[in-house]
């Protein structure tokens, strides 16, 4: 059974455009974010609305390739293409954009992109360990705070920041709860629906409403679990997807896994559960900027070296979600995730003895047939292992 509220989530991105336009008419500022490292609490505390701008669609890539090298990750090209062709309403609506120096491709792309929008690029440290990186990142947050205040003509008070921290934490807890529904076997939600619902959240005009909507879906999923109407038969191989971010438009691997007889129970990537478990400490005795810095530095992204957090997270998720196989998705030309995939392979095979599949692809549909063969074979291996 498919939850009724999925109808709303499926079109959520389009539906929210009008809300954002109205908000803008009422002089509310909109701030675009590209990455999970962007501290949305500072945006909220400035009274602005954060929206995700990360490109997940293939359409604008051709335009981007007129400027950027083709041999670049599709996520970067899609993000850039949307901006320069003015085909992303969210980019158009954004008054200000926050970017970070994550991977090489992205940070150099931002140098171009800043010609199109007022932008602040945060200097992200390359490691999450040690006090020096923490101090650096904390200073970066202070700079961002000032930039936001200047550009949005707002003041970010300590009080409003604490409020924003509470709100964003509440949203994370709710989304995590939604994701955790799929710990149940068989999973009440398809991976595609789960991805769609979590991804929609990037476009919320009002976080409270977004939380309500997700709560509604959780209710429906609970019901599905209760009356045993999961979309998957018992014994369906339970797959964890890790690696580069996915969203609507770049969901092809999620879609294929489920088409080939798997159930994506866990999304360990940005947009999935990767960042949801890390909450900002809500402690009135603590400087809220410091609390923010601590939380954001924990995000286990492959841009960090080392990135041991990813393996700790995978360790936990594989066990908690009773995973039968792991698929690691690398977008073409994403070196950091590509290299890390070899370590993930070792980890999954040696520590868990689970089947592992590494896929390298882009947003186009040209290799669907090839991918389907690999994924089907992988599901066959996983399914047989599960039976034994």
């Amino acid at each position, binding site marked *: 059974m498919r939850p009724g509220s999925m109808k709303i989530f499926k079109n959520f991105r389009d539906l929210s455009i009008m809300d954002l336009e109205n908000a803008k008419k009422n002089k509310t500022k909109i701030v675009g974010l590209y990455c999970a490292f962007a501290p949305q609490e500072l945006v909220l505390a400035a009274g602005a609305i954060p929206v995700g701008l990360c490109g997940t669609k293939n359409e604008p890539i051709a335009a981007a390739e007129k400027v950027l090298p083709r041999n670049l990750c599709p996520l970067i090209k899609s993000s850039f293409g949307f901006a320069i062709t003015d085909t992303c309403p969210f980019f158009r609506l954004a008054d200000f954009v926050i970017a970070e120096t994550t991977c090489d491709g992205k940070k150099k792309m931002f140098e171009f992109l800043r010609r199109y929008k007022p932008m602040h690029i945060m200097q992200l440290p390359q490691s999450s360990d040690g006090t020096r990186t923490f101090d650096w990142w904390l200073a970066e947050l202070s700079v961002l705070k000032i930039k936001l205040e200047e550009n949005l003509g707002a003041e970010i008070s300590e009080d409003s920041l604490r409020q924003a921290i509470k709100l964003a934490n509440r949203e994370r807890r709710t989304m995590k709860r939604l994701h955790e529904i799929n710990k149940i076997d068989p999973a009440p939600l398809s991976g595609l629906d789960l991805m769609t619902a979590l991804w929609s959240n990037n476009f919320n005009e009002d976080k409270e409403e977004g939380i309500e909507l997700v709560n509604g879906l959780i209710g429906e999923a609970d019901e599905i679990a209760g009356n045993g109407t999961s979309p998957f038969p018992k014994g369906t191989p339970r797959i964890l997807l890790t690696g580069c971010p996915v969203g609507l438009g770049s969901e092809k691997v999620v879609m294929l896994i489920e088409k080939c007889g798997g159930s994506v129970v866990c999304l360990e990537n940005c947009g999935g559960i990767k960042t949801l478990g890390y909450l900002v400490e809500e402690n009135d005795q603590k400087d809220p900027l410091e609390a923010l810095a601590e939380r954001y530095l924990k995000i286990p992204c492959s841009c960090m070296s080392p990135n041991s957090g990813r393996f700790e997270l995978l360790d936990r998720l594989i066990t908690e979600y009773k995973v039968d196989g792991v698929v690691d998705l690398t977008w073409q030309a994403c070196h950091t995730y590509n290299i890390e995939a070899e370590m993930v392979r070792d980890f999954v095979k040696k520590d868990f003895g689970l*089947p592992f599949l590494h896929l390298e692809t882009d947003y186009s549909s040209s290799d669907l047939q090839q991918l389907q063969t690999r994924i089907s074979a992988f599901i066959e291996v996983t399914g047989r292992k599960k039976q034994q």
Partner: protein
Amino acid sequence: MITVGLDLGSVTTKAVLVEGNSWISLIRPTGYSPRQAGREAFEELLGNAGLKRGDIGFIVGTGYGRISVPFIDQAVTEITCHAKGAHFLVKEIDMVIDIGGQDSKVIAVDRFGNVTDFAMNDRCAAGTGKFLEVIAAALGLDVSELAMLSKNADPIQTSNMCTVFVESEVISLLAEGVKRERIIAGIHQSVAARVAAMAERLGKGEHIVFTGGVAKNEGVREFLGKELGRDLLVVPESQIAGALGAALLAQEEVKLKSL
């Protein structure tokens, strides 16, 4: 119990009928319609065996055209089928290396012929039969001549792995006066190195069987053996391994059902 395996490849359709430990097979061109090729191959096979449709307990289809054949009972990927069939042909293997026209794959198998892991080349043609074809054409040769011509030649390293670039590299090497056989040997070595790297990721096998069109090329086979430090087994019937595996999986399926 009698079962049938159908392998609907892009070029040829293979059909195998298995009863107990014996089997019969046939190979026909696929043509433009895998659906029709599948039906015809199946009927011809039944005719050869003197059987009717009703005598067949289970049919497994494989190969890229498997989705277009409506009368099969189950579709299984060529990876799973190929491994099963190759393992039946050569019992003690733990790895299959298959280099065909369009792709190359390495499959690790357990002692029952079940796949434990596999790797395939990505979208590009390097490390496949296509790569060798392009190079042969650039040298004015047929692929079948490559191995003979380059026997015992000292391979010259080519720097490119991209088919298009290697083609022009080959032409400039020729212009520099490098002997043709050294170039061919170099190309064989690079295909072997590429596939060996894939195999090593899976933990190279002890007993490896080498299948697919390129397995006929002794040059590639030798370099691959050297890279992996193993002798590679080659079986004459390897072309029907996929269809045979499909028929064997159909046997397992029937057994499972009767439990």
